[in-house]
């Protein structure tokens, strides 16, 4: 009883604190009603944003997977090499440098990109066009053309996220004992087969949690698009979070803005359910 009282009160306080955010969203949902959502369905701008949200996240996720997984294997090999040769410190420094895209706040690191995409002085255009002559005039206007702006945004999304993917995959890889790799090698499994039949099943839970985390993060992130293109040109690169901001804050239409954002909620809920099931299954095992 004594213990319960001592630990119970702060515990419920913590519970209240962390849950209050959720009920706030739920409460607002009550005001909104379904008519706002129905109106959204007729708004072409909404569908552009909806589609963009998913395309950016999906393409971004593929890019992150390709780069992140190769980086994870590289780091694993380096870790094994370097530990015997230079000590762990060197690996730590290297990892720190590679992790920069993830560890730097994106709202600050994005200015480097913004400069590279500058319409007049774009470094990308100067290097690829003026120096290497890979591109012809007229050079792409990275943040002024709907297609190129989309490419530019996805590039930043991938750049920001691939180190995170790598660290998650690496965390999985290092949890696999070396014997299992050796056994696969002895059995004649190639690189792809080892990945598919040995590694993936073993680290699936970690990969999945990482994926859920990253998808929710990418879907809901407003910073990259807001600072790069602010949804422009002409609203072609809006995503759900940015239209939520534009209609909710700048347009002052709170209920529509909230509806824009809450469209994401069912998908996040699905992600959470998967996450939960995964956790429970692990506990039972």
């Amino acid at each position, binding site marked *: 009883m004594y213990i319960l009282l001592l*630990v119970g009160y702060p515990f419920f306080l913590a519970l209240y604190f962390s849950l209050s*955010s959720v009920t706030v969203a739920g409460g607002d949902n009550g005001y909104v009603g379904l008519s706002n959502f129905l109106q959204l369905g007729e708004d072409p701008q909404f569908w552009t944003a909806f589609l963009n949200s998913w395309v950016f996240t999906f393409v971004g996720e593929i890019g992150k997977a390709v780069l992140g997984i190769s980086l994870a294997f590289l780091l694993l090999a380096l870790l094994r090499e370097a530990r015997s040769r230079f000590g762990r410190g060197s690996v730590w420094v290297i990892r720190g440098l*590679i992790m920069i895209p993830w560890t730097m706040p994106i709202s600050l690191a994005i200015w480097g990109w913004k400069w590279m995409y500058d319409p007049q002085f774009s470094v990308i255009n100067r290097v690829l066009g003026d120096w290497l002559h890979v591109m012809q005039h007229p050079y792409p206007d990275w943040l002024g053309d709907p297609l190129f702006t989309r490419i530019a945004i996805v590039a930043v999304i991938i*750049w920001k996220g691939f180190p995170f993917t790598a660290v998650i995959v690496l965390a999985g890889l290092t949890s696999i004992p070396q014997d299992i790799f050796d056994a696969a090698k002895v059995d004649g499994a190639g690189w792809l087969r080892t990945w598919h039949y040995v590694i993936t099943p073993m680290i699936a839970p970690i990969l999945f949690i990482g994926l859920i985390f990253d998808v929710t993060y990418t879907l809901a992130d*407003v910073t990259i698009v807001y600072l790069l293109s602010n949804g422009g040109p002409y609203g072609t690169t809006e995503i759900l979070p940015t239209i939520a901001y534009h209609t909710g804050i700048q347009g002052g239409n709170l209920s529509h803005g909230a509806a824009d954002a809450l469209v994401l909620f069912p998908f996040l809920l699905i992600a959470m359910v998967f*996450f939960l099931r995964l956790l429970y299954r692990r506990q039972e095992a």
Partner: protein
Amino acid sequence: MSAQAVARRPIADTGRRPINWRRTRRLTGLMVALLFFLFLAFFPIFFMIHGAFVADYDLIDPSVSPFWFSRPLTLTHLTYLFDHTNFVVWAKNSAVVSGAVVAITLVVCLPGGYALARLRFAGAQNIGIAIFMTYLVPPILLFLPLVQIVGNVFNLLNTKWALVLVYPTFTIPFCLWLMMGFFRRIPIEIEEAALVDGCNRWQAVWHVVLPVSVPGILTAAIFAFTLSMQDFIYALVMVSPSAEKVLTIGIPTELIRGDVFYWGELFTAALIPAVVVATLYNFFLDYFVEGITGGAIK
């Protein structure tokens, strides 16, 4: 061939080991790959560092390489930032906000995490998971209602204290989850030993549990700090007077005037806090990964 090699070895073996070509090739491959990734991660940052130190005209002069400079390097961007903008004010605000958020987070998460880790009733585990789930509810779903609450109920809109109020909504769930993991790894026996030796519950926690969980507390504090430094949307919608802005929002709103980008100042202003946060973050990266994967690794 192998017979030749064996026969030759005593002659060739003059203390130097023969070069292992396979290993060398492998190492070279690794290094090339590493350089590729280093380049990939670093090049946007390079332009920020470059732009922070070169003169303005070097940036836009087509005869100057975008990677180099022709006019002398300068610190004017830095001095301009300190003398003619509110950079110092924003930095102070950021520090105050993050500091307060760290304090609030720790005050809630230390006892909360301890309770969740030690409590032996059926729901404890579920409640822990439920709290972590709230971390997956992104700010973008919450910012509109939160603006209303902060404005109407607390009347704090357009002050930095609004941010102090809302940042714990994402720092607490994550840090609570982290602390829960930490406390769970501390064997309960040392507490019981303290109780047997005549401590009461408070003393046992204060003298025994807290000292051994210092790394955990430090980690939670660092993450509360870096997470609150990474926020953008709340700062954007809640604070507009320049004197109350934090760094993440002051930089894009005041160093770009209309269509004019103050590139040098932008880069300098962004780099200073970004490097601090990235360094701190990197120190505790392993704990972050562990927090996310929910200890699934071990």
